């Protein structure tokens, strides 16, 4: 029973790590996509510049997926023969996934808002598109920091629990 509960926590962590940033990225790319479509419908030559801005909030979904795969891999659930875990250990893996899950979701949405504002810059001053991309890209920092923390935490737990 305890092992099953531990596995539940670990899988819940992986689901949150993949799901929340994925939802944030979907909302974010949709938002920037609407803005990009508005500009491209007036000036199709700006497609390349606005596409870069639309792609920016998509990365959180990839980071989340990476953390989910690492979680399932480090805990050997992916291999189908996980060692016996206590429920506290399962909860610890869930906690390790949370930085990416939470920060990934919110940073994707906020990065999308910055990128949508950047689309406005591209529309009015196409030569300044580099600045627009920089403004939006800076939000990425926090998603990368969360990714780093989740990776370090997962790696630390793997070592602490002696999982090979």
């Amino acid at each position, binding site marked *: 029973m305890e092992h099953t509960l531990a596995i539940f926590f670990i899988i819940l962590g992986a689901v949150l790590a993949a799901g929340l940033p994925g939802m944030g990225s979907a909302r974010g790319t949709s938002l920037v996509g609407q*803005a990009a479509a*508005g*500009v491209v419908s*007036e000036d199709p030559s700006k497609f390349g510049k606005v596409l870069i801005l639309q792609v920016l909030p998509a990365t959180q979904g990839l980071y989340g997926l990476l953390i989910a795969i690492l979680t399932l891999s480090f805990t050997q659930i992916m291999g189908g023969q996980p060692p016996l875990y206590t429920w506290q250990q399962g909860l610890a893996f869930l906690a390790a996934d949370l930085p990416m899950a939470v920060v990934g979701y919110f940073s994707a949405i906020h990065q999308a*808002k910055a990128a949508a504002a950047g689309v*406005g810059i591209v*529309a*009015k001053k196409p030569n300044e598109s580099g600045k627009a991309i920089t403004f939006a890209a800076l939000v990425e920092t926090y998603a990368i920091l969360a990714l780093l923390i989740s990776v370090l935490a997962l790696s630390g737990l793997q070592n602490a629990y002696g999982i090979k």
Partner: protein
Amino acid sequence: MRETEFTYAVARIRANEPKLLTQAELNAAVAASGFEEAVRRLRDKGYAVEGNRFSAALQQKSDDAWALLAEILPDPHALDSLLIGNDFQNLKVMLKALVSEKTTEGLFVRPSVYDPAALEPLVFERQNDKLPAPLQHADRSAYHILTKTRFAQLGDSVIDRAAMEWSIAFAKKEDPLLLRYANVKAALADLKILCRCIRSGKTGSFITRCVCGCDDFSKERLLKVDSMESLADLIAHSPYAAAGEALKESPAAFEKSCDDLLTETLRDGRNNTFGVLPLAAYWHAVQTEILNVRILLSAKLNGVSDGMIKERMRTLYA
């Protein structure tokens, strides 16, 4: 409505904003040696003026801007507070045509919230209760004034006041920033009315029926104004002090200052990425540009000096 639903529309507007006249282009048109040269300089910006008649070209510019907004607005009624004034203007046209037994052909203002062609038979057949609710009271009052007293100025003022009141009422349902714009517009309209009433010696009862009151000036406060001095004092101690300074200069400077204050109210629309404000600001920007071009071309046709034209030019949004 969620502000992110305007994202596509705002992006389309951002892509269209560079097509607006810039200050440098306007200055170049003002510096033109005559009407023809000014028209030539404006043609690149979409003003297809033929001969000496430019009203159709200006109307076309306005129609094009509204066609764009109507196409991209996620909610077709999102900017009703900006248009309802045109419905009241059309109501004036209909009532005057009815009373003077003339035609309304070519006199309606567009765009409007309600189709004037649908309203005209209702006004002419006096089916007041079938008119849209915002127009009913103004129609009844103004018709009564026009038929019983023939006091056209009072009839107009009653309709203008209703237009302001309904603009504020519509804006309350739309957006807090549009509500602020409607309030500023009403405040400036009240100040202009007071100014004209005092200059022409109109009585308190006339003023009572004309001013609408708003967030910045209560109706009671406005009704205490009985001289140009007290009006100047009221303005000096309000957010419209700049207009007060212009009032000391001339009525034309006052009108310009009021229009510039309105543009300033929407200035944030240049930086907002979400919400309805950039769309409202674009519509206001196009109307201001058209007003400037009208002043410019009229002045060029009549040989007015460049210096005087520049004094009348409204501050551009772009």
